[in-house]
């Protein structure tokens, strides 16, 4: 039932997922993909917490994951609302199109 893998392996898995998510954020221009990539990154960091928590057999890592989950849910709902706005105003999902304010 229990996989006693080295903690480093779990962390490396988290790091790989995170880096892939990062590449996705940097490469994709479609806001839907960008948001999905951000979800991947958040999920990866949550994974790192869970791995660390399980290494000590403590619940704290999972609690952090729950908080990250909450954050991700909020983020994606606001982000998708922004995507709707972007599409409604600029007729595109290209995130680079929304660069008028140079923010």
């Amino acid at each position, binding site marked *: 039932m229990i996989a006693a893998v080295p903690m480093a392996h779990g962390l490396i898995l988290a790091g790989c997922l995170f880096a892939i998510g990062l590449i996705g954020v940097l490469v994709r*221009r479609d806001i839907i993909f960008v948001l999905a990539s951000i979800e991947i990154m958040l999920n990866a960091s949550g994974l790192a917490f869970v791995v660390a928590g399980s290494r000590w057999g403590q619940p704290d890592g999972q609690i952090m994951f729950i908080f990250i989950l909450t954050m991700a849910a909020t983020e994606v709902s606001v982000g998708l609302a922004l995507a709707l706005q972007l599409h409604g105003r600029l007729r595109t999902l290209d*995130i680079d199109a*929304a*660069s*008028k304010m*140079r923010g």
Partner: protein
Amino acid sequence: MLQLLWLVPALPFAGFVLLALSGRRLPDRWVPFIGVGSVGLSLLAAVLVATSFLAAPPPGYAYSQTLWTWMSVGSFTPGITLYLDALSLVMVVVVTFVGFFIHLYSAEFMAGGEGYGRFFAYMNLFVGSMLTLVLASNLLLLYLGWEGVGLCSYLLIGFWYQDSYNGYAARKAFVVTRVGDAALAIGLFLIFNSLGTLEIQDLMRRAAQQWAPGSALALSAAALLLVGALGKSAQLPLQTWLPDAMAGPTPVSALIHAATMVTAGVYLIARTNVLFALAPAVQLAVAVIGAVTLLLAGFSALTQWDIKRVLAYSTISQIGYMFLALGVGAWTAAIFHFMTHAFFKSLLFLAAGVVIMSLDEEHDMFKMGGLRRSLPLAFWTFLVGAASLSALPLVTAGGYSKESILYQAWAGQAGSPWLWAVGIAGAFLTGMYSFRMVFLTFFGEMKQQPSKKPSIDIGIPLVVLAALSIAGGYIDLPRTLGNLPILSSFLQNTLPPTVIAQPAIDTELVLGVIAGVVPLIGIYFAYLLFFQRRPAYADGPTRVARGGPLYRLWFAGWGFDWLYDRLIVRPFVWAARADKDDVIDSVYDGITRLNVVFNNLLSGTESGRVRWYAAGIALGAVVVIAIGVFA
């Protein structure tokens, strides 16, 4: 009743705050109630404090009241502490008394003009600052009052700021006194650095223990304090601001000359007398500077046509007497003369103000004349003031105080016949220029009809101050005349007693007679030259001198302005011009330009593209992790 002491400076400050906050919303008819009332209540508090102080002197003949600790840095904990002893008591009473009457006079004098409330706000702040200065128990608080006084003088000299000349005069007063203030500040640093305290009583005690008389530290500390005092008291070589300070309204001149500001230097030296006693060379310098100043200013006063400028030079000259007294160790005589001078000088200014006001802002004495009958109150009070200024013997207050100074300049601890001779020459000049004013203004043919008469509000201060200009002298009668030194013996509770080298009653008598007769001779000369205008005499000093180089030199105040203009102002302006393109600033400009370049560089990265920013963050993370991992 001594606990009321804090009210004395607090009330004028409260008046200032009220007036400043209400601004123009306050109707003009309410302004005097606050402006004059605050100083009046302050006078009342001062009188109450004085009576209880005299009735039951506190232990050690000094009372100190700590209101709160100003700041606390290590061992440096200056408090907002008021310190009342004989010296500060005399100062406080004179300042509030004269200040109150000047305020009362101003209520009428300034009425109807623009900035009525502003004027009283400044005046109250002025009086409050001076009281802070006088009552301060440590030099830092004294410095606060000192700077407050400087600030108010700037504000009030430039009160009519629409005229650019007034602004110039205010700036000049501010800048010139700033020279002295800087020296005073350095003096404070020096004292704190070597004695570890700024509490005046402590530091004098420690200085007497730790510093050898004439040691370099004592000399430099005293010299720096002296320069500070010179700036504030308009003594050589920092006297040039005072004649130009006449640009302010007349009551301001009265306040600056009589109660506040210029006497601050005298007070500072008297207050720190131990430091000066430890530095005999500096004390001698005080005496010499006083003597030279009184003589030079006397000559300049003789040539001015502007009645207020005559009074300004006379103030410089009289403060010179006080410095002379301080220099020869006649501490009490200096304070005595300060007191009588406060009475008669404020009287003279206020009376001159009446003349100027009733002649529609005419300052030129040669365009006045014959006002004796049309302005009797102004004439009689001005006459009393002039008599007191020229030190008529027996009947005037100025006579007693000046006679006391002159006697001690001869016979005092550090006195010498030379200093006495200069003082006597100055007394001759004083009599001459004082009555020159009287004769030119009030006698002779009438050239201009007065357009308005002073009201009762103006009359009361004149009469009261005139009475004191006569009676103020009887508070301290010399040995030759009844020997009743009330003020001196009171002040000697605080100030060191005056040491007379060879106390001989007949010397004192002879010197007293000479000091009494010389002003009369001066007045007689003025009578001949300016009343009778006898050609035989007029050919002598006046006509030849008029327009002659000497006359012009005197008129221009010995050319100090010219000298400073050439020596300091022009080189400075030239340097400023030369540096117009900011040669020195190019380094800083370079920094600015570098910033602009980097800004352009960085604003190029501000594309508005989220992915671009994310790439920046990622790159930063990679670099930081790399540093963390591999370094």
